[in-house]
């Protein structure tokens, strides 16, 4: 009994346990080194292949002749004028890494099967599309396609594909790849339901010859061209090796013709904590990209992201990948040391989206009309909301008031519309017209009952909470009881889908040219369409339908202006504001410019030799 378990034995066990632990850790370390060696080997192999190919081409003189090979349209670098300009700057240098952050690990990098923003950001560096938009003129400029025609009935688009384009593994890009891409997207088994819905009106996609593709649409729709021209083209040779199920279950099958490539196009797995790295595509058919690598570090905590930027560990803090909140931005702008080595902007970009108050016009789905069914009441509510004050106090001025769903920086919005001012007196008059009078200190509706409603919003957003609290106080002055109703996201979605709410404080993402059909057309009230305010106006329906069918830009914009005026008159939403995009960029990135759609793309940036930090 004495010798059952002594102190000696306890220490012995502890020692053994520690030994086992150390051995295991050593094994892990060895594994990691081995994996790195494998990666290095792969890279070396690819470089060797490249070198041998170049040597072969040089011997045949093919490189020289390629620059004189006439393509059907202008110079081979059409569409890259801005990039070439930045490459001609005096301190231009190639090399270095561009380091950005992402707030979540993207689940999948395989194109189209995940509608995450993080995946889309990475994919945009790897995939090319047929056309791109000029960031300032908003016109379409050639990318993979160097010319295109639109038929008179606006249903047929013909694209000529640039010659000499290859994917990053060397295989040529032809019309076959374009047809393959669109067939894949429209394949029912492929897991991209939302994207498939955008191509509803697309008919057959046919290859006329190796460099000529034709798209035929069933009905004229103004977004048809945009959808088709903006889709990233996938390599048939690479992706057709996999079955649809393999693609759906895959995590990182990403290869394209773009300026950067995924070093290992088949084996990427989401690993928490590991940065996502794209390497320069040496075979890129356009101007040679400036950076050796594009790195995205995964930092979930917004405070940690700010810290990483302030320490100089990342180059970009803002924009698409998660930037500072208005309060954080102000704080950073007060830091002199930070300002000395960075630049910052508060930009109005069309893709930022807008905040709104959606007034539900029926009680529940198809119930009795609420007090908001009367457009005068809605207009009055807009006039009772001091939107300038919300922008000033809650968003620190980093937003601007809007009066319709179209971004004021795009041609879609009517620039002559003056929004409803903040005018409680006029609002009271309007309410009186609509039959709402004050009884005591409460405002009562036409049915004699006091007006009270709940403002529904997503409980995880601090800004919405403050706006709802402000609205509660502001409407109380007018005698209306507006109670904030925060709900968890899933619960809120359920309420919206059942149309069981009073007022919704929400936000939509934006677009350079948005289609108000899904949100404001009466056909979208039924089911789970996004017209959950149950707004139905035949005039608005007609205008939207008319505009959607016009493919010619110059003819379509006046119709949108008409819609904008209708929005202003009817106020189905109270359009609150559009946030500004807040960006901080380290000064070592040169070539950064402000355009109408925000900051110019990183393809035009570079780091001068003297400021380069990351050497291989």
């Amino acid at each position, binding site marked *: 009994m004495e010798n059952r378990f002594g102190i000696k034995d306890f220490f012995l066990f502890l020692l053994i346990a520690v030994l086992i632990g150390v051995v295991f850790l050593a094994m892990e370390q060895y594994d990691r080194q081995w994996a790195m060696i494998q990666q290095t080997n792969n890279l070396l192999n690819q470089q060797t292949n490249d070198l041998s190919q170049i040597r072969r081409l040089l011997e045949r003189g093919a490189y020289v002749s390629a620059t004189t090979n006439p393509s059907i349209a202008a110079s081979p670098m059409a569409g890259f004028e801005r990039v070439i300009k930045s490459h001609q700057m005096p301190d231009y240098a190639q090399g270095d890494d561009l380091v950005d952050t992402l707030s979540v690990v993207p689940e999948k990098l395989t194109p189209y099967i995940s509608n995450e923003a993080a995946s889309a950001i990475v994919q945009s560096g790897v995939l090319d599309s047929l056309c791109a938009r000029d960031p300032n003129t908003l016109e379409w400029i050639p990318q993979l396609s160097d010319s295109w025609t639109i038929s008179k009935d606006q249903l047929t688009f013909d694209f000529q594909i640039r010659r000499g384009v290859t994917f990053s593994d060397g295989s040529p890009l032809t019309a076959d790849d374009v047809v393959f891409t669109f067939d894949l997207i429209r394949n029912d088994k492929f897991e991209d339901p939302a994207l498939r819905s955008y191509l509803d009106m697309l008919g057959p996609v046919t290859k006329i010859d190796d460099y000529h593709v034709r798209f035929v649409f069933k009905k004229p729709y103004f977004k048809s061209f945009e959808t088709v021209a903006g889709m990233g083209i996938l390599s048939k040779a690479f992706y057709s090796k996999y079955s649809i199920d393999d693609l759906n279950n895959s995590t990182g099958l990403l290869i394209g013709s773009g300026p950067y490539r995924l070093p290992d196009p088949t084996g990427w797995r989401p690993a928490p904590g590991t940065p996502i790295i794209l390497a320069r595509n040496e075979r890129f058919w356009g101007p040679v990209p400036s950076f050796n690598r594009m790195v995205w570090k995964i930092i979930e905590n917004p405070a*940690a992201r700010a810290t990483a930027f302030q320490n100089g560990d990342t180059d970009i803090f803002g924009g698409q990948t998660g930037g500072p909140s208005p309060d*954080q931005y102000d704080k950073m702008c007060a830091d002199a040391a930070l300002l000395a080595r960075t630049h910052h902007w508060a930009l109005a970009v069309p893709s930022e989206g807008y905040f709104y108050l959606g007034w539900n016009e029926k009680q529940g789905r198809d119930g009795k009309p609420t007090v908001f069914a009367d457009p005068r009441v809605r207009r009055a509510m807009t006039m009772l909301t001091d939107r300038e004050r919300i922008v000033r106090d809650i968003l620190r001025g980093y937003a601007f008031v809007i009066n319709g769903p179209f971004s004021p920086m795009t041609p879609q919005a009517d620039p002559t519309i003056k929004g409803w001012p903040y005018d409680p007196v006029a609002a009271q008059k309007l309410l009186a017209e609509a039959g709402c009078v004050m009884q005591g200190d*409460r405002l009562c509706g036409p049915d004699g009952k006091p007006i009270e409603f709940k403002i529904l919003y997503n409980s995880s957003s601090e800004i919405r909470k403050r706006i709802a609290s402000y609205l509660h*106080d502001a409407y109380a002055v007018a005698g209306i009881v507006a109670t904030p109703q*925060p709900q968890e996201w899933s*619960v809120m979605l359920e309420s919206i889908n059942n149309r069981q709410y009073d007022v919704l404080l929400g936000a939509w993402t934006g677009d350079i040219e948005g289609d108000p059909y899904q949100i404001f057309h009466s056909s979208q009230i039924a089911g789970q369409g996004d017209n959950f305010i149950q707004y139905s106006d035949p005039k608005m329906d007609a205008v939207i339908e008319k505009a959607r069918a016009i493919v010619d830009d110059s003819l379509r914009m006046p119709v949108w202006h008409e819609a904008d005026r209708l929005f202003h008159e009817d106020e189905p939403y109270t359009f609150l504001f559009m946030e500004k995009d807040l960006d901080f960029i380290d000064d070592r990135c040169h070539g950064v410019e402000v355009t109408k759609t925000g900051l110019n793309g990183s393809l035009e940036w570079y780091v001068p030799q003297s400021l380069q930090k990351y050497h291989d």
Partner: protein
Amino acid sequence: MTEIGTITPLGHGELLATESASSSRSYFRQIVDSVLRRVGAILGAIWIGTLVLLAVFSPLIANSHPCLMEKDGHWSSPMLAHLSAGDVILQTLFWSGAVLYFIPKPRRQTRLILWICVSVLAIGIFPFIINPPTIVEYQIYREDQQAGKIEKVFYAPIPFSPDDHLFDQMEMRLTAPSRIHWMGTTSDSADLLSNMIYATRIALSIGFISTGIALIIGVIIGGLMGYYVGWIDLLGMRLVEIFDAIPTLLLLLCFVAIFTPNLYIMMAIIGATSWVGYAYFIRAEFLSLRQRDFVQAARAAGLPVRSILFRHMLPNGLTPLIVSASFGVASAILVESTLSFLGIGLVNEASWGNLLNQAVGEGGTFYWWIALYPGLAIFLTVFAYNLIGEALRDALDPKLQENK
């Protein structure tokens, strides 16, 4: 033994009950005395008492509505006009309880029954006759004062209500403690001290009521298990094991996900997930008690089961329950704070947990006053209940009694 043998069946139960009642009262007195002799328990009781006073008198201590105001020549009391039915009920309960406690005349039991009657009347009647105005604009008083429209005004000691978002001074958001806001302001631009005072109501009520619910459920299930052994026990043990082994926070999250959490649902949910400990205790007690003589006699006398369970067996098994209940109240408060902190519990009402949630801002800024004061409040309350629980345990533990 002889006594029991000669008692008639009719009076037996009553006699035993009153005897046990009277001896348990003097036992009760004993316990209370020995508990109150301990320093820890005294401190704990003082803190809880302070909280109770704060909870009852919160609208009189912290209110944006002035206590007395002279405007345009006539006096008014907006504070009294805006008292809600709940406030008035609490005041009634408190004052009637205090008065009835101190008058010596009728017997204790009658006084208790009187108090219960008054409470039921209050709860039943006041919600219908007390209707404060629904529209509240706190900024009016400050604005009128600045404009000079008010001649004389007297405010409560803390002139801010918890939901006063300072509509006229929205830039006062997240300011450090100062002379105006003694504990600073929250991320809603509301005064922190006032929020904390009103949050005592939530803390105390969740503590007591959810523990009460858990006690009731635990006693019933545990009692039935301990009395009816056999397949009821087997089934009951599985039920107890299920609730014991389930990751509690996960279950709470799921429950809270079903219902939009308001105060009463939170109480029920926390009660429904924490009854396991009490069931274990009662079952163990009943298992040992059911073989005892007095229980056998009661069964032989043909008394109904619920009488046996609750009048005879339960008073003897109360000891570990009381100690456990005190720790249970502390744990219920902790659970509610944790859920509110994670953003899942009470979102609308001010509670110490969701105040603590605002302590670290989005950009990582640390607002020390929002972290310190609500956290301190939670800590002191839990500590107080733990102290009382410890003191009870020491007082009720027979082994330690011998050593004294």
